[in-house]
């Protein structure tokens, strides 16, 4: 698949007052990979995302992006390096219009947010419209994003992440709360982004049809440790993963 390594995690640890969310985890992601991270609730998926994007500081271990050590960096520096994130719980700008939501990410990417003099309406129109259209929400460009439907909000979540023109896109349950048809559309978009723009994407998901339908690599996380990692076929055959999922062992 991809050539050189984009993201490297070495011996990552994180405990929340006693509870070991992530225990010395090693992980590598190559350029252009479309990989999924699955695991039961509380396996540490979201904490894993939080550590990489700088929302939490890891207790120990290293995170390297493009060979650069970004452990302990604040979220905005990590994002500027090219890691974009879409959130599990809707995390948009409800009083701004859909267009303004995405444009905000575009402006940040173009380093224009400190520009006091040029009117925002003159900036980033082309890129914003492209992203809105690709995410299929250009119809609501001037609608206040708070009034969108749940599915549209989820798409806006993705669009905002794309606004940053990331090298690595991290999606936290992109199809949660979506109808079958909507989640298919979203995953088609994710797929085309990965293929055409060679954008490496990692996403967490509970819906196994989506995971096995699209991901080309699956990592199974359980109690903060990786218990299986490989192509969908290898993971399906792996008994430890099955045991965890089929619930012999709590």
């Amino acid at each position, binding site marked *: 698949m991809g050539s050189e390594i984009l993201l490297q995690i070495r011996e990552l640890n994180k405990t929340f007052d006693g509870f070991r969310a992530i225990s010395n985890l090693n992980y590598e992601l190559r350029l252009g990979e479309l990989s999924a991270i699955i695991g039961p609730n509380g396996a540490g998926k979201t904490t894993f995302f939080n550590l990489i994007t700088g929302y939490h500081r890891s207790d120990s271990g290293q995170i390297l992006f493009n060979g650069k050590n970004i452990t302990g960096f604040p979220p905005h520096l990590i994002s500027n390096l090219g890691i974009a994130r879409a959130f599990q719980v809707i995390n948009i700008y409800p*009083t701004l219009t859909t267009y*303004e939501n995405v444009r905000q990410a575009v402006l940040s990417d173009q380093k224009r947010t400190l520009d006091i003099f040029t009117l925002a309406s003159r900036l980033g129109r082309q890129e914003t419209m492209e992203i809105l259209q690709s995410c299929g929400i250009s119809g609501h460009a001037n609608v206040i994003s708070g009034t969108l439907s749940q599915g549209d909000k989820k798409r806006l979540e993705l669009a905002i992440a794309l606004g940053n023109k990331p090298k690595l896109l991290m999606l936290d349950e992109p199809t949660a709360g979506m109808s079958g048809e909507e989640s298919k559309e979203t995953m088609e978009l994710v797929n085309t982004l990965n293929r055409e723009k060679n954008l490496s994407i990692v996403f967490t998901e509970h819906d196994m049809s989506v995971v096995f339908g699209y991901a080309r690599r699956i990592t199974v996380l359980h109690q903060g440790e990786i218990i299986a990692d490989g192509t969908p076929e290898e993971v399906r055959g792996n008994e430890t993963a099955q045991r965890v999922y089929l619930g012999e062992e709590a």
Partner: protein
Amino acid sequence: MMHMRGLDRVLVIGLFLSLLLLPFPVKGAEPYNLGVVLEFTGTGALYSRHSYQGIELAVEEINKEGGFLGKHPIKLFSRDSQSKPDVGVREAKDLILREKVKGIIGTQSSNIALAVEEVCYEYKIIHVIANSNAEAMTVSNYSPYTYQIVPNTYMQATATAVSIAKNVKSKGWKTYDTIGSNYEYPHSTINTVVEHLKKTSPEFKLAKQYWPKLGETEFSAYVTSIIGDKPDFVYACVPGSDGFALFRQGNSYGLFKNVFYASGATFLTEMMEMKDELPRGIVTVLRAPFFANMNNPMMANLVKKYQAKFNQYPDDFVPMQYDAVYVLKQAIEKAGSIEPENVKNAMKGMTVNTTRGSLSFRKIDNMVNCPSYTGIIADDPKYPFPILRDMVVVSGEESWRPESEVLQLRDKADLSKKRRPEELKF
């Protein structure tokens, strides 16, 4: 995100609303509009309430004879400055521009009086001050339109210093402390006393100075500290309700028993309000106590009228405010017109008779040579509240700042930017 859709209506209605509210200017009228700016809210509220009673009484009497010059009935306009200078300024402007007042009787606290003085100067309106006695009004911030008929801080402090100096000699005191609320009036009063004591009795050393914040209600820390210093004498200038708290807490610590105490800010109002809570045997200085001038017919008449109307004795402020209206009356009679410009010229260096006898304005600073009354607080069977015993009356000429010093201070303050040159020549 500019949702303008509904706003067109708010704009149009907003503009009409503000237009309707504006009253149309009223044609000039015959009566003499007299403005009063006092602090009806804030720490000076009690003094202002009594002062206004004094003014009302005088206006009633004068209006009975048809008003100024017998034909201009006085119309009173009172405004509350809320103890804030910027509100005082706005109210003064409101009185001058909207109510067309020709004279303003000044405010209680000095910072507001100074601000109102500037407004009166700009619009050339007569400004009589009968409460606030900051010296800045007539010295460093002198204005030809402002007349002061209350003994200023320098005069009161000198009078106190004169009586203290006598005790220093007789009782052989060595050290003293001072305590004063941390704003201009106590600062200038205490500084004057300290300067005077340095000149008259150099061996009398100043040990420590305390400056509690304005509005302080908790003086125990100060009282214990003063008791700790063990001074022979304490000079205090803590006005208003802060002074009440200091007396009560001083009493509970027994401060006044073992230290000779003089207060520069205990007026007749405090003596009437606190009655038994007020410690006896402390020295204070009063401005216009009625009991010291009962032989003056004007004061006797005022006391009778005031008791009839408000069934209580008048405090220091009532006679002074009463005088303010009468001084204005005599100036108008001398000028023969109610126009402020002529009244101003007539009032210069004029001799007026007041509840405190006949007094005259000093040309250089429009300050009247009113006496200060110092004495020791003691009970008196005639009155339900303590008054002064072995009272010393220090006349105006003895206590006011010599003319040379006044001119010196005024040059230092450099009024050239604020006042026209011809007004500064005497």
